């Protein structure tokens, strides 16, 4: 009953029927209260978004997988301290983090959200070193600003590490097979029997024993994985079985194998071989690929290549290996065994070679290599595949043995290897490009990021994620038109994706496109009412219409939906500042910085508040922090210059302004600020020169003319002053400016008062 229940639970999980899964699993746990069943139940709860249930049932459990699931539920319930304690207990500083890469990634997240940056970086790097394909960990490293170079992480070293992982998986697979767990085995057998069709049941039961051994190993590893692996295992034997049924010769081998099995207790090779033969015959590459794809989440292509390779040629080597392995049990040898011994020397070497090359095939090797129980089975995840692989391999082997095509085997294995290596290399290459681009983006080196993204293939380039990253890069360079264009493309490619849409709404805000912005906001909200980005867009819409209170409400909603979304906090801060509520503004910005210290917009916002409050030292400090994070932004440089000017450090101010002018020639503000500073330094002519330049690029700007008028007034060139004041007034500035300019005009012919507040 236990296996039956487990099987149903897992298939319910797989088919997204959480309620069914939960009910059945609770019955299961009531009958057989083992910890792995509890893990399965926790899985069901987590799948149904009931982290609190998982929390309660797993509290205090010590198995690694339980600790991992417990940590996940704590994380979802925001109980970060308990999550941390579960993953790395305080009194066992050297205990291993459960689940390797995933565990390290989760720990890294916990450390990040409790503001322990260096530990976070540590764990993310470890996660990446264990599993180089864990992109999420790399992303976090970029956000924390601690990443050296994408090529470091997605390098050939990583490639070989992945290969080794697969290899070690298979080897550990073997060992686990040796350590048969009778109960699980039987349950596995049962399970397998359930899923596999009629006929080869007998054969299955034996072969299943072998396979189940491997399954057992995997099951012990991770509940979740074992679930899926069990399923996949169940699936794979069936085609095998069907294969079996169709093939006549194998029985001979099978019998022989079974004898051999009974002889030394590790009957896997025999059974496997028998199973393999028909399997190989019927299995096409495509099907193998599918199977392997299911078994191995991220090593699909490799597996398939391996499987196909195995199917075609591996058998021989397997056979040889088996032969070598079961050398002692050749008493009841059939042709098969004979074949083994004959080709043992040649194929065994080949087999060994292939074994090292791939994870899955290790099953084959393991099955045939009873003697070599030293190989360690690696991850449970791999186990399944390797088990299947082994069964496949065995089949293939058997087949080949019967046909005596040993040579093919050797050739096939190397094909496998190369395909595997190619697959790994391709994937790593792709990740490397994306990683470099993302890293440059996070370091705000937008130009370089854009160049890197250009290197992507058309297919990858035209995805929503890449296009919105490119849009973001343009946004950072204050090129709002291009950015808007790319975001538009991104929306067309994936209209359901909300990632990065908050930036798009900000861009539309800057461009003052009310229609587009409100349309975007409406669309986003109708797509997903629970996404913070949608509410940010809505808030931006209201803010553009100067309705700051409603905008603030929307941003607060976004904050409530996801308090770890830094931008929502920053935008609320901006609204508070617009409402002149500086205290709350400061609080919001600081909350944003708590979530993401490298969010330079918040540093900028704090700087602006302090500038308003005339706390110039603070302002300068905050602008400098922002500038440190994003050294390419001319706007930041400009503001830093302004704060330096307020501190009367005019030389430094001018330096910074010069940098700003160089950084972005399209930005007119640094020139204006420069003129302002020069005016205060009484270098009137230089100031006028700058303003003349500005006149060219922004002819409608009243402040330019007003400032020129002011300078001419200082120079006592009254006519020119009047002229420019008149020009400024013609362009209809806001009422305050009108008042100032008009009063300046009135006072033109009066002596200049000390410190006149123009």
């Amino acid at each position, binding site marked *: 009953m236990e296996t039956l229940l487990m099987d149903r639970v897992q298939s319910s999980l797989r088919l997204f029927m959480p309620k069914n899964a939960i009910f059945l699993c609770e019955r299961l746990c009531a009958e057989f209260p083992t910890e792995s069943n509890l893990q399965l139940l926790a899985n069901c709860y987590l799948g149904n978004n009931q982290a609190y249930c998982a929390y309660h049932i797993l509290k205090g459990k010590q198995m690694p997988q339980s600790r991992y699931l417990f940590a996940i539920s704590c994380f979802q319930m925001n109980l970060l301290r308990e999550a941390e304690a579960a993953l790395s207990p305080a009194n066992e500083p050297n205990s291993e983090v459960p689940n390797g890469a995933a565990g390290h990634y989760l720990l890294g997240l916990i450390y990040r959200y409790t503001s322990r940056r260096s530990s976070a970086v540590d764990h993310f790097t470890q996660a990446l070193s264990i599993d180089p394909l864990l992109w999420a960990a790399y992303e976090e490293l970029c956000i924390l600003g601690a990443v050296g170079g994408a090529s470091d992480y997605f390098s050939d070293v990583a490639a070989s590490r992945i290969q080794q992982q697969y290899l070690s998986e298979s080897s550990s697979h073997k060992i686990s097979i040796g350590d048969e767990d009778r109960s699980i085995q039987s349950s596995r057998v049962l399970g397998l029997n359930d899923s596999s069709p009629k006929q080869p049941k007998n054969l299955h039961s034996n072969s299943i024993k072998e396979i189940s051994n491997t399954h057992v190993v995997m099951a012990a590893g991770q509940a979740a994985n074992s679930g899926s692996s069990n399923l996949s295992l169940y699936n794979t034997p069936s085609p095998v079985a069907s294969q079996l049924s169709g093939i006549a010769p194998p029985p001979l081998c099978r019998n022989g194998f079974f004898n051999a099995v009974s002889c030394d207790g590790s009957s896997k090779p025999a059974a496997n071989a028998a199973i393999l033969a028909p399997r190989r015959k019927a299995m096409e590459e495509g099907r193998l690929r599918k199977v392997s794809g299911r078994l191995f989440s991220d090593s699909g292509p490799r597996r398939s290549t391996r499987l196909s390779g195995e199917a075609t040629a591996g058998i021989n080597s397997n056979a040889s290996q088996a032969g070598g392995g079961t050398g002692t049990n050749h008493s009841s040898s059939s042709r098969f065994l004979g074949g083994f011994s004959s080709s043992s020397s040649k194929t065994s070497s080949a087999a060994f070679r292939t074994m090292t090359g791939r994870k899955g095939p290790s099953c084959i090797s393991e099955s045939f290599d009873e003697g070599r129980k030293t190989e360690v089975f690696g991850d449970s995840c791999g186990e399944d595949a390797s088990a299947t692989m082994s069964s496949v391999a065995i089949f293939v082997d058997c087949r080949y043995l019967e046909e005596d095509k040993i040579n093919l085997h050797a050739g096939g294995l190397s094909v496998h290897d190369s395909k595997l290596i190619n697959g790994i290399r391709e994937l790593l290459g792709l990740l490397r490009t994306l990683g470099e681009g993302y890293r440059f983006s996070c370091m705000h080196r937008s130009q370089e990021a854009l160049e890197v993204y250009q290197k992507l293939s058309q297919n990858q380039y035209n995805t929503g994620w890449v296009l919105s990253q490119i849009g973001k890069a343009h946004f950072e360079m*204050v090129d709002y038109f291009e950015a808007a264009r790319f975001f538009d493309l991104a929306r067309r490619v994936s209209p359901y994706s909300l990632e990065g849409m908050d930036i798009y709404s900000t861009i539309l805000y800057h461009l003052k496109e009310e229609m587009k912005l409100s349309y975007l906001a409406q669309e986003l909200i109708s797509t997903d009412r629970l996404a913070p980005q949608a509410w940010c867009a809505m808030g931006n819409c209201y803010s553009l219409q100067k309705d700051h209170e409603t905008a603030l409400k929307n941003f607060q909603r976004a904050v409530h939906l996801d308090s770890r979304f830094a931008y929502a906090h920053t935008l609320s801060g901006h609204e508070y500042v617009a409402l002149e509520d500086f205290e709350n503004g400061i609080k919001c910005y600081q909350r944003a910085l708590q979530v993401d210290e490298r969010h330079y917009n918040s540093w900028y916002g704090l700087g602006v508040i302090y500038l308003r409050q005339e706390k110039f030292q603070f302002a300068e400090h905050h602008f400098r922090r922002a500038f440190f994070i994003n050294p390419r932004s001319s706007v930041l440089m400009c503001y830093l210059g302004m704060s330096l000017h307020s501190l009367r450090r005019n030389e430094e101010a001018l330096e910074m302004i010069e940098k700003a002018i160089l950084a972005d020639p399209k930005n007119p503000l640094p020139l204006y600020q420069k003129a302002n500073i020069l005016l205060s330094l009484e270098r009137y002519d230089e100031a006028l020169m700058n303003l003349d330049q500005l006149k060219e690029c922004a002819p409608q*700007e009243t402040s330019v003319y007003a400032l020129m008028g002011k300078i001419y007034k200082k120079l006592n060139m009254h006519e020119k002053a009047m002229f420019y004041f008149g020009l400024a007034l013609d362009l209809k500035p806001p009422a305050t400016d009108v008042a100032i300019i008009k009063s300046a005009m009135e006072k033109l012919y009066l002596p200049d008062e000390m410190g006149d507040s123009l």
Partner: protein
Amino acid sequence: MATESEGEEDAATAAGKLTGIPQLSVEDDLREMANKAAWSVSSCKPGNGVLSLRDDNLDTYWQSDGAQPHLVNIQFQKKVKLQLLVLYVDFKLDESYTPSKISIRAGDGFHNLKEIKTVELVKPVGWVHISLSGTDPRETFIHTFMLQLAVLSNHLNGRDTHIRQIKVYGPRPNPVPRQPFHFTSPEFITYSCLR
């Protein structure tokens, strides 16, 4: 809330008499200033107190309950620039309770209020916009700590008065701090701030 359209005022304005207009029309570069101010009234009937003046609900009103002149005091935390005062009154509903002569005073506190404007209302229905500017362009705004609105007399010689809503407007601050002038062209505004 603020609309772009220009407020129309009758020829009666020229004579210093005002009638109300049905819509609130305030320029975009003005904003409501008195959210953080302290509001008080000289007297009120229970249930029709000072809160009704600020609740954005035109059905609720403040009703005075004492001798004339009835006063509404608005005190700010710091000196502010004010440009426009708007109040909502309705002769059709309130008849003899509708104010007819209003005096606006400004100063630092109760001790040195000085009258800056007097207006006369003639059967007003709707929002009455009272500009606080002087004739001089330098006097577009008044800088003050406190504003007092005094109802000197009502229509049909009523004793008490009803006012349904009062709003006070002043200029928006420059979004870019420490600048002598506002930026008006899109080129400047785009680069003027980060968001």
